[in-house]
């Protein structure tokens, strides 16, 4: 089987400082990869290099495109990469306001990607937006309200709806549950798990929270100082960590 995403040797420096170094892995269709590690270990740097938000110093990010099969997204043209960003890729930011247009209604936020790929029927766009609000458990009656009137958890769910409406094949998420209350986190996780399963989504999730990867990720990478120190099936890594740093990470969570 062709990997949906094949990452090879991704390296990014900030000046002399390492952001992430020599990261490689394959992600197969329908798989969810978790990336964990302490603050500053390079998780967001890696995610942003993969999603085309940062240009890596070295390495390839090969995506199995619908039209042309596997293509290196680092070297493809910018219009092509931005098109992927609006269609087959989705990016869920930690802070919903980074991923939403706060001055635009919930319906407009969800509809934007549809309009970006050429949908021009208002009734259809609104219908799909309303469907998606319901799928992320937001009352359809809120379709014309701005996200500023939404709670943090609702904003995050709206951001997810806005990303998933075009049926992407790969979702990048950076701490999607960070900054939310524990009960709100649990509900969001349930929702994400349902969506991933129902849509057969592939996803890469960056998080501090091992409970998030336990629930969502099939596989896990542990990062330290910009490098992957351990990778494997989630349950294996969490239940029987091999690397001393992973052991520390897991045990520190168990103590909580």
């Amino acid at each position, binding site marked *: 089987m062709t990997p949906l995403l094949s990452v090879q040797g991704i390296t990014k420096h900030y000046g002399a400082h390492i952001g992430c170094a020599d990261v490689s892995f394959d992600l197969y269709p329908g798989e969810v990869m978790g990336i964990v590690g302490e603050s500053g270990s390079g998780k967001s740097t890696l995610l942003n290099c993969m999603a085309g938000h940062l240009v890596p110093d070295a390495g390839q990010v090969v995506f199995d495109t619908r039209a042309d099969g596997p293509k290196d997204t680092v070297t493809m043209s910018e219009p092509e990469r931005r098109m992927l960003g*609006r269609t087959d890729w989705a990016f869920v930011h930690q802070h919903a306001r980074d991923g939403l247009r706060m001055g635009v*209604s919930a*319906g407009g936020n969800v509809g*934007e990607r549809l*309009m*970006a790929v050429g949908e021009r*029927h208002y009734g259809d766009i609104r219908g799909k937006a309303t469907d998606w609000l319901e799928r992320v458990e937001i009352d359809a009656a809120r379709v014309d309200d701005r996200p500023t009137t939404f709670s943090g958890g609702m904003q995050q769910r709206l951001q997810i709806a806005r990303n998933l409406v075009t049926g992407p094949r790969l979702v990048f998420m950076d701490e999607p549950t960070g900054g939310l209350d524990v009960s709100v986190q649990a509900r969001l996780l349930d929702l994400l798990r349902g969506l991933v399963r129902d849509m057969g989504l592939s996803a890469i999730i960056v998080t501090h929270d091992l409970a998030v990867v336990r629930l969502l990720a099939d596989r896990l990478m542990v990062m330290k100082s910009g490098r992957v120190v351990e990778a494997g099936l989630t349950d294996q890594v969490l239940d029987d960590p091999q690397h001393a740093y992973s052991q520390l990470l897991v045990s520190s969570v168990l103590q909580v």
Partner: protein
Amino acid sequence: MTDYNFAYLDEQTKRMIRRAILKGLAIPGYQVPFASREMPMPYGWGTGGVQVSAAVLTPDDTFKVIDQGADDTTNAVSIRSFFERTAGVETTTATTEASVIQTRHRIPEEPLTEDQILVYQVPIPEPLRFLEPRESETRKMHSLEEYGLMHVKLYEDISRHGHIATSYAYPVKVEGRYVMDPSPIPKFDNPKLSDMAAIQLFGAGREQRIYALPPYTQVVSLDFEDHPFEASKADHLCGLCDATDSYLDEVIMDDQGGRMFVCSDTDYCEARRAAGHKGKDAA
């Protein structure tokens, strides 16, 4: 007038503006940056339009200025007298007699010809500004033809008002490529932008942008399949000249709240009345 170079601006500045105009004509709808000069009038008075007019006027031209359809507002009168003074050109209020027409908020009703240039005063040239304030991003959106955001604006309009409520500065797409702000003309005028015989030039002074439509350029107003663009106007006849096809202003006539609808294009209305047309409110 000997105090000034012809049409106020020095020759080098005019050449720089002409280069921007030529580039604009070569890439219809594309916003060309230019080094806007201080003009002896406030920005709100259309210094972008004035600079473009200064760059295209020749001593043989006949110049007309329209402000919201009228030739006699303070703004129109002072721009007209500015060029009478600094360029010594003939001026007129008759659309058919003018070779260069500077306008704010209207396109004349009388179809323009290949011998004419229409210069628009533009306050905000960037149609994407409303939803995307970062200029680096809007420039990228134009260059990559990422115009979904323009429809988000129209979507918001419909969701709030039940229809596309944008009635001025209604966004258009030029030759299937650049999305353009036609300046705050009523959307009634939008169809006139397309396939026009005259050259259309747009100048934004404060924002330092020039853009252009060469003759016979295709200009399409954005819309949705189920909310098609409509070039609407008040559903009345002109009270003075009985015109059915011109854009109307509603004017209050007396303290009793009496109203009437009259052509916003005063030259058009006068010409019709001179030709014997008479509306129900005409004395």
